[in-house]
């Protein structure tokens, strides 16, 4: 089962990790833009 967990972490890490990292990046950028407008 350890092998399963390791592969799960790698494959979900690449895909979900990529998605979440970009979400956070966009959130920060849009937050900064909103502050600038204010």
């Amino acid at each position, binding site marked *: 089962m350890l092998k399963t967990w390791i592969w*799960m972490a790698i494959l979900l890490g690449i895909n979900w990790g990529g998605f979440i990292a970009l979400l956070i990046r*966009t959130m920060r950028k849009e937050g900064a833009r909103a502050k600038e407008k204010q």
Partner: protein
Amino acid sequence: MSQKDKFVSRWGFLAAAIGMAVGTGNIWRFPRMTAQYGGGVFILAYTCALFLWSLPLLMSEMAIGRKTRLGPIGGFRDLLGKNFTWMGAWLVSVCMLITFYYSVVTGWCIKYFTLAMSGAFKPGVDTGALWNAFHNNSWQNLFFHFLSISLCGFIIYKGIQSGVERVSKVMVPALFVFLVVAAVRAVTLAGAGQGLTYMFVPIWSKLGKPETWLQAFTQSAWSTGAAWGLLFTYSVYTSRKEDISQNCIMVGFGDQTAALLAGLAIIPTIFALSPDLESAHAAMESGNTGLTFISLAHLFPKMPAGFIVAPIFFLAMVFAAFTSLIAMVEVGVKTLMDANWSRKTSTLLVVAGTFFLGIPSAVFPSFLDNQDWVWGVALLVSGFFIILAVRRHGAERVRTELINPTADIKMGRWWSFIITYISPLIFLGLTGWWLYKGIIDNPKSWWKPFSSFTTMTIIVQWALLMVVLLLVNKALAKWVKRPPEEVD
């Protein structure tokens, strides 16, 4: 373009674009393909496909749409010249031909949501018979087809801001929450570990098999919405300052995230609740509708809290299908609007056209299968036309003038290399393989144009469409007007 026909926020655009990409294929095809083609190996190949085929195409579509401010027909005309208008029309035609039967498929999801809500999936119910009874009932299929396209038309009629953006901002986050709930329930079932192993641990012997790679690239091509003309159309409604590369990468990863969540919701459920391994394997190989509407519907009653999970799962399917259907219908509506027709008239025409031209798919299941086969593979040709457009305009020009100036994540020269040399090879490999498959799967009937899954039915229908579009090319180029000047 009126201010109402623009996405108000980047989040609104992202929600609509991710909703466009995440469709039924993420839920009922990706888990099957993963199970069939080596688990982790398939997921790795699928991730490669995202970077080598889907992302370059999505970025190109968004770049052309944002630059020309026109749907695919006008976009190809203005970027490449009048002689190439028919290529944009091919993109729109293929998308619409898929829309005609996708509305029927969305209707199936709505029907199954209502069945789940009414508690129809009880222990001992023959879900195979239930599906067959519904599938062969033309009136019910027509009713749900009508319901799905009417609801979609109502949203499109409201416009981008009050319709598409508002609905996507609710449906897309909800879809992800529903998939998370279904996945958590599935992986916490006793015996789910076997399913997780099946899904994630790579079967390395499959790595060297061409079919694994071909299926992974095909899945990515169909699933991300690349070359459908959908992002092309949505990008017309974005600001000229909108970041192309980061938004497209988010759409790609968002699509894969949803697919993996669906895999986590389905594969462990099948392995934990099937009576034996043989039944689990049979369920995974029972086709899209077999897996979802028969096998899963049969297993939900055996699941603790299954009476809650079943409606959540089928509502997730409705939202996934519906947000994709909205994007498809918008392609047709935008095409008519480019010829100066009002949104109201365009929506009415596209909705009525989709309903009537979807009737054969709603009434004759074999017709739907045929259309899915012919126009699914045709999306690869659409991708090739986008590649040709980028090459003709200059891949480096597209990268440096259209993508990078407003991008947070700049694309390097490798982007131009991929779309110029790698993507055309992928097109040749995939299209050639599907046409070859049509022959080897039907050695005695591949030349028959009226059979569902033959190579000849593809060739004949593609040729017919291409001839028609070439004949009306000049008229189409005149028909689409110039986009109005806008203040950004």
